């Protein structure tokens, strides 16, 4: 009964979505406030019905109702409750349902908290949002219905892929989806602006918090996914340039560009058309990502689906939405009024440069991700484009961008003074050069790129502090005044400073892990010792333990540095009888920002076990940096200017405080 309720609720949501897509839109054309007002209750009700549908599927999972095909294929009665719940989105159908749930959630949020939006804009935004929802609910109902029944009901399920039985699955996909589905709001705003043919600085002020919110979750989602892969896959990698990762990374790059260009639009009323285009592109890349992941065109761990009808359906949606949006853009954008002028060397100019590099970097990722697919479709030749391609293309572009990062916030709006800024960055550059020379000396004869990248990272970090010091006028006024000034800075200023700081930290982590990390692989018997980077790992022995739906072969290693025992690491091999698969549980030990990583390979009949040991210097900075970025984004989101939301006449700002 419960699955039928879920199915029925989804059909109702579809019907409501059609109403929400048409009535307010028509109302906006006729300027009829009653019809436009329909958008709010329908958006909330649509979210409620999809919520019921999602709850019904969750109930089927929790109650292990194996008469539902989807539950049978992906669940098991012995599975822990957490994985029963996260199993809801650990498969194609359920994850699409989560996708539309989040889409409807954002629609409802705009409906409820968009009180100060002009009525027509709100009506148009919500109808565009609803068109997307209708298309994807239809996709679920037609090709990926999670509520299909199985007769007769099997007694036991086939269990979830063991690799997915991890807390990571409970966290990573929802965060990621909030991120990239959240970009739908910026898209809907852009389309609404094009439909109305009107766009102003207030528009940017409304779009920016939504984009920022999506960006925060996207950043967290990507970062958590990376950490999950790192500890769960057992070979110590944290980013594989896997097409599925790229699918989430491309919208992130464009969303980052969008955040920056929206600042220009809000502050200077320039780059309007460009900002609209970015808003369209960001969500288009989310859709392309959904297509890549959900159509099963890729060779990847994440591609659970392998059904061509789905692929064709999503492809049609892609063409409809991206093609439609770009066509509308081409038709309406020339009618929008061009914005303010600025000199190439200015804050605006720096932000344009940022956009230019982010977009080009995104394009290289796009080419690397889609080229193999295109080549195969055209010639039948199968190739793989891996990390070397991305390191050689994305890497240099991003390093140049990072080099420019400290300059941006220090340049004045409209017309900047580059020599002046360079002078103020002397200290930062000095520190960076010293660190670079230091690393170079230590690594004498080693890779040239490592010290260079470290130098750039230090420059970005020192640059972020320089920005703060400049704003607070440290060393120019008494310290107390400086503190007062720093505390009085707008939160968005702190936000951008922290975001840039985080970027630098992440880069240091990346360089540390990739350039200075060491690895050893060996076959070991109990009693033997293996050493890496000054740490000795003594293999104490092996025991077998029983988990709820798996058995665990746990090995025990005592880690010593010199004569001191540092700790004990217990990597294991987990066997899941329901799928007769094995999964390695790596053991991690933190030493400051550095980690020791221990993972197991095959057990030989002779009683030896293959062991992989890694020493990963500063690896934790990779994720810590993203957390700092997220904190920066959140601070910026709580900025009073954005919370107020409504366009207020610009009040005279204190002259000493550079406009953020």
């Amino acid at each position, binding site marked *: 009964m419960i*699955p*039928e309720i879920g199915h029925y609720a989804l059909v109702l949501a579809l019907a409501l979505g059609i109403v929400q897509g048409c009535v307010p839109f028509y109302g906006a054309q006729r300027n009829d406030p009653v019809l436009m007002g329909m958008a709010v209750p329908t958006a909330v009700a649509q979210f409620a019905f999809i919520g019921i549908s999602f709850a019904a599927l969750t109930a089927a999972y929790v109650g292990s109702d194996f008469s539902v*095909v989807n539950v049978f*294929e992906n669940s098991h009665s012995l599975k822990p409750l957490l994985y029963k719940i996260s199993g809801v989105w650990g498969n194609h159908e359920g994850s699409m349902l989560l996708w539309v749930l989040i889409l409807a959630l954002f629609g409802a949020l705009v409906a409820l908290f968009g009180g100060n939006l002009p009525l027509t804009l709100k009506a148009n935004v919500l109808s565009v949002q609803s068109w997307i929802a209708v298309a994807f609910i239809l996709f679920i109902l037609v090709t990926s*219905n999670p*509520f*299909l*029944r*199985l*007769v007769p009901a099997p007694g036991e399920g086939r269990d979830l*892929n*063991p*690799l997915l039985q991890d807390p990571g699955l409970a966290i990573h996909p929802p965060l990621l989806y909030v991120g990239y589905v959240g970009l739908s709001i910026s898209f809907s705003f852009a389309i609404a602006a094009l439909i109305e043919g009107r766009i102003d600085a207030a528009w940017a002020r409304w779009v920016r918090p939504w984009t920022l919110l999506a960006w925060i979750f996207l950043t967290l989602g990507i970062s958590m996914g990376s950490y999950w892969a790192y500890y769960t896959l*057992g070979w110590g990698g944290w980013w594989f340039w896997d097409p599925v990762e790229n699918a989430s990374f491309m919208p992130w790059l464009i969303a980052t560009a969008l955040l920056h260009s929206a600042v220009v639009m809000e502050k200077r009323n320039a780059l309007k058309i460009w900002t609209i285009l970015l808003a369209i592109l960001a969500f288009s890349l989310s859709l392309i990502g959904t297509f890549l992941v959900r159509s*099963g065109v*890729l*060779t990847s*761990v994440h*591609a*659970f689906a*392998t059904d061509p009808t789905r692929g064709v359906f999503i492809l049609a949606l892609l063409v409809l939405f991206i093609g439609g949006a770009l066509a509308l853009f081409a038709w309406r954008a020339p009618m929008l009024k061009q914005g303010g*002028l*600025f*000199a*190439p060397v200015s804050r605006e100019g720096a932000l*344009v*440069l940022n956009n*230019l*590099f982010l977009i*080009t*970097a995104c*394009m*290289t990722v796009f*080419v*690397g991700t889609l*080229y193999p697919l295109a080549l195969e479709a055209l010639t039948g*030749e*199968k*190739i*793989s*484009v*891996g990390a*070397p*391609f991305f390191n*050689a*293309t994305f890497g*240099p*572009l991003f390093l140049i961008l990072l080099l420019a990062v400290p300059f941006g916030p220090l340049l004045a709006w409209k017309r900047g003074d580059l020599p002046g800024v360079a002078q103020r960055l002397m200290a930062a550059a000095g520190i960076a050069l010293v660190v670079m020379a230091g690393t170079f000396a230590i690594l004498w004869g080693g890779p040239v790129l490592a010290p260079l990248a470290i130098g750039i990272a230090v420059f970005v970090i020192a640059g972020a502090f320089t920005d703060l010091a400049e704003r607070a006028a440290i060393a120019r006024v008494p310290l107390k005044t400086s503190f007062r000034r720093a505390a009085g800075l707008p939160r968005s200023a702190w936000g951008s400073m922290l975001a840039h700081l985080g970027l630098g930290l992440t880069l240091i982590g990346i360089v540390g892990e990739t350039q200075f990390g060491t690895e050893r*692989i*060996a*076959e070991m018997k109990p009693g033997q010792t293996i050493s890496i980077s000054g740490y000795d790992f003594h293999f104490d022995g092996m025991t077998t333990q029983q988990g709820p739906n798996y058995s665990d072969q746990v090995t025990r290693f005592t880690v010593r540095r010199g004569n001191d025992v540092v700790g004990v690491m217990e990597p294991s091999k987990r066997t899941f009888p329901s*799928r*007769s*698969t*094995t*999964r*390695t549980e790596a053991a991690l030990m933190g030493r400051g920002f550095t980690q020791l990583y221990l993972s197991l*390979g*095959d057990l030989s009949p002779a009683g030896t076990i*293959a062991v992989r040991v890694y020493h990963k210097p500063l690896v934790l900075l990779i994720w810590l940096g993203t957390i700092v970025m997220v904190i920066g984004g959140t601070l910026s989101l709580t900025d009073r200017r954005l919370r107020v939301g409504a366009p207020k006449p610009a009040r005279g700002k204190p002259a000493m405080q550079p406009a953020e």
Partner: protein
Amino acid sequence: MTRKQRRLVLIGSALAVLVLAVGLVLTALKDSIVFFNSPTDVVEKQVAPGARIRLGGLVQEGSVARGDNLQVRFAVTDGRNTIPVAYQGVLPDLFREGQGVVTEGALDQTGTFKADNVLAKHDENYMPREVADRLKQQGHWKDDAGKKTGTAGKGITP
């Protein structure tokens, strides 16, 4: 600066970045892509020794032989041709006889494929698509992955 000059600066720098990116992409595509081959492709195309390729197929039943120091030898087959593979290192959890595998490396002079990377990014329901396609083409597709859709087909719409 006039509006026109400003626009020129903007377009100029955009083009410069674009040219840089295209240059990087083209060099990288020349150097760092790897072609995927089945054992039959390797035989028919006469892949030169030393050329870096991906070799994919099924691990031949009974072919896995482990030596000292994590040395392992096995054979990759697509039913028509079989290529011996030598690898040193830890095999992925999902590596098994009779299952799909993708290895990366190069052929040596004796015709053995020296792999430096063995990928098994799949579970028993999911075979690398490249492998599945080739096996289907050559009629060696055992409809194991199809089992899943088979049961799903029995479902009725509520």
